[in-house]
């Protein structure tokens, strides 16, 4: 057993946890962050990419609007490379009540959210594909943000201040005695090793999984009600400005241009288990219809990938009303010294990625209040590393970079313009990473071909560079393709069908990938209570071609009830459990993720 000692343990590597890690580290606390998977692999990596201007809330929630407006400018400043200043439009679509625009403008004036009504013709000149039938257009300062880049740059900042990040470490127990938290045990999922971390404070930032953590502390579980939101990425940017419906917040009311794609979102349905988020067929249709209302011809455009995220809503009747003083809007803070007479444990839920830094500030303030200490929060002042250029992200950046280095380093992922040097250098930094871990930082496989061409190149290079052996590389490749496929099948129609046909021809027809030797030694999952590994509702697709690329067909999985019996995916001759030596089977928290 590995033994560590620290002041604070943060559980959960989403934007909230990482923001808290950074804030604690900057205030001088020795802090360790644990996540059972990679950073921002849950909710923080599965949203539509909007950095709120506050416009969305000027009517429904003025305080949220104020917070968003202020945090938007802070995040844009301290993490410029993760943020694109696209601007946003609130448009009144045909049939929408034009008077809502007046309430919107009045709300914006009250909350200090910058908003300016522009003429419909100006809006159409800016966004030629926008529905010409719109009757009003209001320009706001929405931006778009890469959740993974945001997470990693904040984590790097925390690390510079002495914070530690332990990914693929699953918490198994939160220990307390005499009404005081005194440590956490976790399992290193890559090695199977047990880790004991002595600490005096635990900040439970596990989001939709927060209830599972309080359960591990032996306390009455916090009631978390995950709200599932589905999103679809389209193959290229149909718009370059965030397009919002100028209506009271509803489903399918936003189209976000982020990186090379644009994302239509989102729905909101209560679910039981944040690890099993189905993307029902009717929700896909609902999103495509919503897109069509904003952009005529949207349904003919190419849909690439769908995913769902779980909103971490906490509805806990044991929260005292007085606990709300440390809350940001939409955020719940549960002080367990009040709730359960256990000091040194705070659970946080809710919130928005846009306000992650402010939420962290409130949480760490709450911790300090319990500890009786006080240090100033400086997270809004200091730039995060990796942003040295000091300019905001623009869609043209990668094209410009490849224009300069194209002849020196070959392009591996042609859709997302990732070259060999980028891949090799991150791979060597994270030799135990799987291809999805690398994808979240490099965007490999997230473009139109969904890994059909680049994944085999990447696996080959990993072997060539001596980082993995051929068997592991094959396992990595299969896992990556399976995870891509999981997000492809729910939206499979139109142009993407032909791509899948070609990819299948290459991978199955030429490489016979299902039968390429992959690791024969199947390591048992070291976790006692494994993260759900069986693809219970992992909707194994019925394959569009005779010879399925990776899976056996299952009858109409789209409508499968999440509670059904598991349907194991069949990897040819491999056992149904994961063939990888170092990755959890089918990477349960990794499916249905942002393209």
């Amino acid at each position, binding site marked *: 057993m590995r033994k560590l000692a620290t002041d604070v343990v943060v559980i959960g590597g989403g934007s909230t946890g990482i923001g808290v890690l950074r804030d604690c580290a900057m205030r001088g606390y020795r802090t360790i962050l644990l996540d059972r998977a990679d950073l921002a692999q849950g909710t923080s990596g599965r949203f539509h990419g909007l950095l709120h201007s506050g416009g969305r809330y000027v009517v429904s929630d003025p305080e949220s609007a104020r917070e968003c407006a202020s945090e938007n400018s802070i995040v844009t400043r301290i993490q410029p490379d993760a943020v694109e200043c696209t601007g946003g439009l609130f448009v009144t679509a045909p049939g929408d009540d034009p008077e809502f625009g007046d309430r919107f403008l009045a709300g914006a004036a009250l909350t200090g959210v910058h908003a300016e009504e522009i003429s419909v013709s100006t809006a159409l000149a800016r966004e030629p594909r926008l529905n010409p039938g719109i009757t009003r257009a209001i320009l706001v300062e929405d931006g778009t943000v890469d959740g993974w880049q945001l997470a990693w740059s904040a984590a790097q900042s925390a690390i510079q201040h002495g914070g530690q990040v332990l990914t693929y470490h699953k918490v198994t127990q939160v220990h307390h005695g005499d009404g005081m938290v005194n440590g956490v045990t976790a399992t290193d999922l890559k090695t199977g090793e047990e880790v004991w971390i002595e600490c005096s404070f635990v900040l439970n930032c596990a989001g939709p999984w927060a209830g599972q953590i309080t359960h591990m502390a032996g306390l009455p579980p916090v009631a978390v009600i995950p709200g599932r939101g589905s999103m679809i990425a389209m193959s*290229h940017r149909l718009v370059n400005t965030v397009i919002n419906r100028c209506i009271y917040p509803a489903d399918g009311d936003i189209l976000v241009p982020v990186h090379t794609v644009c994302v239509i979102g989102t729905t909101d349905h209560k679910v039981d288990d944040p690890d099993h988020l189905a993307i029902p067929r009717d929700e896909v249709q609902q999103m495509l219809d919503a897109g069509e209302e904003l952009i005529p011809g949207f349904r003919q455009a190419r849909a690439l990938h769908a995913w769902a995220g779980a909103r971490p809503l906490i509805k806990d009747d044991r929260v005292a009303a007085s606990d709300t003083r440390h809350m940001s809007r939409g955020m719940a803070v549960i002080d367990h010294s009040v709730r359960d007479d256990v000091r040194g444990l705070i659970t946080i839920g809710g919130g928005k990625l846009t306000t992650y830094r402010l939420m962290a500030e409130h949480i760490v303030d709450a911790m300090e209040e319990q500890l009786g200490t006080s240090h100033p929060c400086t997270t809004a002042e200091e730039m995060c590393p990796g942003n040295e250029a000091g300019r905001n992200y623009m*869609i*043209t950046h990668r094209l410009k970079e490849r224009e300069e280095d194209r002849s020196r380093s070959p*392009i591996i992922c*042609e859709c997302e313009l990732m070259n060999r040097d980028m891949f090799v250098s991150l791979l060597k930094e994270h030799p135990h990473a799987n291809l999805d871990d690398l994808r979240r930082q490099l965007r490999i496989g997230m473009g*139109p071909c969904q890994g059909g061409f680049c994944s085999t190149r990447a696996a080959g290079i990993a072997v060539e560079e001596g980082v993995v052996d051929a068997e592991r590389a094959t396992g990595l490749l299969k896992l990556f393709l399976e995870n891509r496929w999981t997000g492809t099948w729910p939206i499979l129609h139109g142009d993407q069908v*032909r791509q899948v046909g*070609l990819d299948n021809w290459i991978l199955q027809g030429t490489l016979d990938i299902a039968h390429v030797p992959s690791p024969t030694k199947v390591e048992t999952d070291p976790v006692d209570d494994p993260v759900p590994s069986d693809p219970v509702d992992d909707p194994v697709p019925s394959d569009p071609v005779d010879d399925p690329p990776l899976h056996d067909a299952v009858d109409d999985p789209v409508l499968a009830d999440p509670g059904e019996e598991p349907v194991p995916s069949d990897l040819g001759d491999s056992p149904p459990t994961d063939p990888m030596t170092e990755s959890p089977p089918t990477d349960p928290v990794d499916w249905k993720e942002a393209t």
Partner: protein
Amino acid sequence: MFDAASQEHATLARASLDQCLKCTICETQCPVMAVTPLFPGPKFVGPQAERYRHGDSVDHSLDYCSSCGTCTLVCPQGVKIAELNSVARAAMKKDHMPVRDQIISRTTLMGKAMHPVAPVANWALRLAPVRWIMEKVIGIHRKAAMPVASTQTFSSWLKHHTSSTQPTRGKVVFFHGCAGEYFEVETSIKTVELLEHLGFQVVTPKQGCCGLALQSNGLFDAARTYVRDLSAQLDIEPGTPIIGSAASCVGMLKHEAREIMGVDDPALIEVGARVRDASEFLLDLAERGELPLDFTPVPLTVAYHAPCQLKGQGMGKPALDLLRLIPGLTVVDAEATCCGIAGTYGFKKEKYDIGQAVGKPLFDAVLEVNPHLAVCDTETCRWQIAAATGAQVVHPVWLLHKAYGLS
């Protein structure tokens, strides 16, 4: 500024990128990519790079595209690759259009300037020091093939011309193009004589340039004006076929101006529907049994090159089929992708060597088949092939003209 129609059009070309499957067939056929690493290839600069384009133009290597259009022609998924690239190039060059590109893309201007002093101009363009200065000052490669100005313009020939035959088949409108007025006058004359010999009444309106060279240099605004004016000039005889002897300019009227620049002028649509390449028109007659086959044998073997802009019209290679009707004549299809001139591309200092490398397989084929005579439908390609091989390169009508005993 894009007008609304062309903006909508650019959007449609952009939408076609959704159809790209990365099959890479365009890359296997791109003649430029095959000879230089400076060009990242049609898939890269077309559907891939387009996903990253917004605001600033950052990928200047796209200018190594020759606009030959082979990529669009071969794409099995219907991606408008060359069109995407032409639009991106226009955006790129908007703020820094080289003076050279402004000059060489205005063929009429060059013709007007050179024609009155044709012997002097032609002589001067053969002088090494003059060419050296041209290369240094405006960037036209010193070895690039230059057009030879005719001492007589086609219009002045036409002024004194009366048909020797009575029309028996009705009217056709003749479209000679600007090169046919100043440089390729003989081709224009032979086409008129041939059509009259076949019994057509040839109407030749005063006409300007189609703007193709401007378009391929990214000068869309000027090109739109040119093509609109030309369309109005040619649209004089409702329902009458318009016969062109400049195959690439015919392609501009048929589809390029609409597909690349979004020109949707009614006159252009009308003219575009009626315009026919000379060989296309004559082969149609032959297929209907309406072309007299009383040819005098022409005992020759020649290589034929189908220009890119002709292939882009999606009508096969009509000249090849037509010339094969002439007894004694053996026409060998050079089966080359591109001659390397691609309008004005191969003239340019920085692209001359690429153009020569692109054309090499064609030049070799010409030299092997017949080093003295070859056949090709477009002007600049003929100049390029002639300069590289020393062969005389003629329009297909020259051989028909001879086979009918007209020359």
